């Protein structure tokens, strides 16, 4: 676990070596929970700052939009809007809102992990979107085919199908990178487009169900995920949350995770240590695809229960923001997914109460991403000296474009 969090603040430049000399006498402290939490807070400062700044920018946009539409300036409008959002997200005690937040967060958690695990191996998986779509269509097709099976089997089959097909959609760019060096950013973007058109073909062709006025897949019957709480908290949300400790365990408790992180942090050292970076790349990309694929399948069999030919979603792209905001760490990703889930869940009420369009949520997300990328702004505003780990993840990706740029 200690690897998950950066060490406590170290003295500024040039003293790292000096510190070692006299500290040798002190007994090596073991990291307890309190220091981990403190470390976590220290790491979270940049992401938190980015969110706060994004909401500040959002306030300005809310003022501007009300100025344009109502020709009057209500200074308290952002507070009202964000308040309504909080209420809608159930954070003021509304159970239905809370359930909505969880339901919205579920796919973002899985998608965020699909991107975050890639970061850990030094891979920028922009393909979560395509992997999600492929998983979704596989879930829809399988669900319709096994609609009459006993529910547990039908559900399992549908999710497995999503996992396998999504995983395959990650395996392709992984293999291309390992074998030919083709950059995953390029190949996954291409595969996203292919997936988007391919599902259209599948739904209007091989998977087309008869007897409907529009092109869609068949009813999934028993494959539908049971609602376990409230109006719409389906089992898939539990699966998404369950993936968090599993992925954490994989990354920090298994030897495979050690290999993934080593390949991501220093591929040369990985080779020296006898690891096989190519194999790890393929495995990691497949795992990323698998996670996104499960998210897709769950979304279908948990919520929409079928797929139409023009099925559209942004979960895969939002997942990139989630992963970056969450510092590519399972816990951070969960928190980021909950935040975005809450924003989505609360947006409806915000629009009803304040006439602020729900699209403001997309803008907020985009601004968060902007501030995460330009973290220097956040650090200036909040006087944070140390760069967060998120910056390292971006650096990994940047490095993979530039090749060796150091002298």
């Amino acid at each position: 676990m200690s690897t998950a969090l950066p060490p406590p603040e170290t003295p500024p430049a040039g003293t790292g070596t000096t510190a070692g000399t006299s500290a040798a006498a002190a007994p090596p402290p073991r990291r307890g929970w309190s220091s981990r939490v403190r470390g976590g807070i220290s790491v979270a400062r940049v992401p938190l700052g980015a969110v706060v700044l994004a909401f500040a920018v959002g306030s300005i946009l809310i003022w501007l939009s009300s100025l344009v539409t109502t020709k009057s300036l209500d200074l308290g409008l952002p507070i009202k809007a964000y308040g309504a959002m909080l209420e809608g997200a159930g954070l003021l005690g509304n159970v239905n809102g809370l359930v909505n937040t969880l339901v919205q967060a579920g796919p973002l958690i899985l998608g965020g992990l699909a991107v975050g695990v890639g970061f850990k191996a030094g891979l920028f998986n922009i393909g979560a979107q395509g992997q999600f779509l492929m998983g979704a269509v596989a879930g829809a097709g399988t669900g319709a085919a096994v609609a009459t099976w006993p529910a547990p089997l039908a559900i399992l089959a549908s999710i497995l199908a999503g996992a396998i097909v999504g995983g395959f959609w990650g395996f392709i760019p992984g293999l291309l990178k390992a074998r030919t060096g083709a950059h995953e950013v390029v190949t996954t973007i291409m595969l996203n487009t292919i997936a988007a058109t391919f599902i259209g073909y599948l739904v209007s062709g091989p998977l087309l169900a008869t007897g409907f006025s529009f092109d869609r897949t068949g009813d999934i019957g028993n494959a539908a995920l049971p609602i376990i709480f409230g109006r719409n908290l389906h089992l898939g949300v539990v699966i998404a949350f369950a993936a968090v400790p599993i992925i954490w365990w994989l990354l920090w408790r298994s030897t495979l995770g050690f290999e993934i992180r080593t390949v991501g942090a220093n591929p040369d050292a990985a080779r020296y240590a006898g690891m096989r970076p190519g194999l790890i790349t393929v495995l990691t990309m497949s795992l990323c695809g698998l996670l996104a694929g499960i998210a897709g399948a769950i979304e279908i069999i948990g919520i929409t229960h079928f797929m139409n030919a023009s099925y559209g979603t942004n979960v895969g792209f939002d997942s990139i923001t989630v992963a970056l905001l969450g510092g590519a760490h399972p816990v951070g990703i969960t928190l980021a997914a909950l935040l975005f889930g809450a924003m989505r869940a609360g947006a409806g009420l915000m629009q009803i109460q304040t006439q602020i369009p729900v699209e403001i949520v997309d803008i907020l997300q985009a601004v968060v991403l902007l501030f995460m990328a330009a973290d220097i702004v956040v650090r200036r505003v909040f006087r944070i000296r140390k760069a967060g780990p998120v910056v390292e993840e971006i650096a990994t990706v940047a490095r993979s474009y530039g090749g060796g740029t150091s002298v």
Partner: protein
Amino acid sequence: MTETAPALSMRGITKRYPGVLANDAIDLDLRPGEILALLGENGAGKSTLMNILYGLAVPDSGEILLDGQPVTIAGPSDAIARGISMVHQHFMLVPVLTVAENILLGEETMANAVFLDRAEAHRRIVELGRRFGFEIDPEAKVGNLSVGWQQRVEILKALYRQARILVLDEPTAVLTPQETTEIFDVLRRLAREGHSIIFISHKLYEVLAIADRITVIRRGRVVGTRLPAETDEDDLAEMMVGRNVQLVVDRGESHPAEPELIIEKFSVADDRGRVVVKDIDLEVRAGEIVGIAGVAGNGQDELVAALTGLRRPAGGRVTLGGKDVTGWGPREMTDFGVGYVPGDRQRYGLVLSFPIEDNLVLTSYYREPFASGPVRNDPAIRDWADESIQAFDIRTPSATVPASNLSGGNQQKVIVAREFSGQPRLLILDQPTRGLDVGSIEFIHRRAIAKRDAGSAILLVSAELDEVLELSDRIAVMYRGEIVAIRDGRTADREEIGLLMATGGKAPIEEVTTTMSVEA
């Protein structure tokens, strides 16, 4: 000694970091036109002191005087404005830009508000270079320059900013002996022109060769200042470390047994497919250290990479412990009992962002007791890490600190602790002490000899001829991919080995210098 005010004077500089007194009332004088060597082990407080001078750190107490005037240095740009420049050990250059562009970065010579005056800048750069004895092409891409020339660009950058006080942080760590000599010439010219130079190093013979005065720092305090004429390496080493240091470790008798590693007709190609290791035959016996001496770039890197499984050999055979291991990968070699201390420790030997404990199991994480099947056994890793930190005197507050926080010497100790563990049948040591302080060098040399006496076969590759001479039972000289001579380590003649390294024993002596500059 002189009546003129010192160019720089640091008085009573004290700097405390949590738990560490990095600088303890340090006094330092730098006279105009002087080369002052600042000598100290890693972690002695040299960097902190220089960071204070450069405005990167604020002292808790003490003052800085420039030409007798007290000043406060607000930051690097302020330091530069006051004529203080620093040349870092790791160059701060943009490889894809030209020499001129690198020098102009941040200090653009403008023709008008919009455009650079390239012609004027080029003229000034060439002129500056000539003044200090070298011809530089301002149009050359920095990435294509040798390390020695990149260093000159760094120095030019400082001079272009009209530095009067130049701080060089271990400038020779990455240079070949020839390049070092050349840089020394440049530094002497600079001093003659009135520039004052602080030269940070822990290489004793270099300091003796270049400095006008030598100030030694240990644990944050100045322990003394010496003139080169009145001191020697042993004296300086003792001041630095605080105890008597054996610069040359007593290697004792070796008792070589059967040949452990047998290399036959071994050839290796480099990345461009050129055969750079040609039909080498070499044996290393158990309980013996064989040193490979050679100017860097004569095929040693490729030979080591092929022996450790990081590169496919082009031909020949390697037998280890009676088994044909030709073409084995790194994992197979590790499992078969090969320890390897890589030459580029930060690139290959460590994952800098990982904690020390993870780095200590980098090549064994998958084995019992550090893993049971696919699951890491963290308690076992912890115990082993604590044990290694003790046994190898790795100076760190805990095993969970990232390796990047350690000094170079302690980073290397992490690698040595890892690779020397167990009973390796073969140890390959590639530049095991490059850039390390005397204390760490002594430590690593002792460990290597202990491993030899415990029966490991050791192949040592080093660009430091002294290191090869001190440790090796037999010395193989490598020249242009071939082993041109093998000598007994105890009776080998330094001059002869040096000549073999430079010429391969074939070329007439007159060609020595030209050949070497080509190789370098």
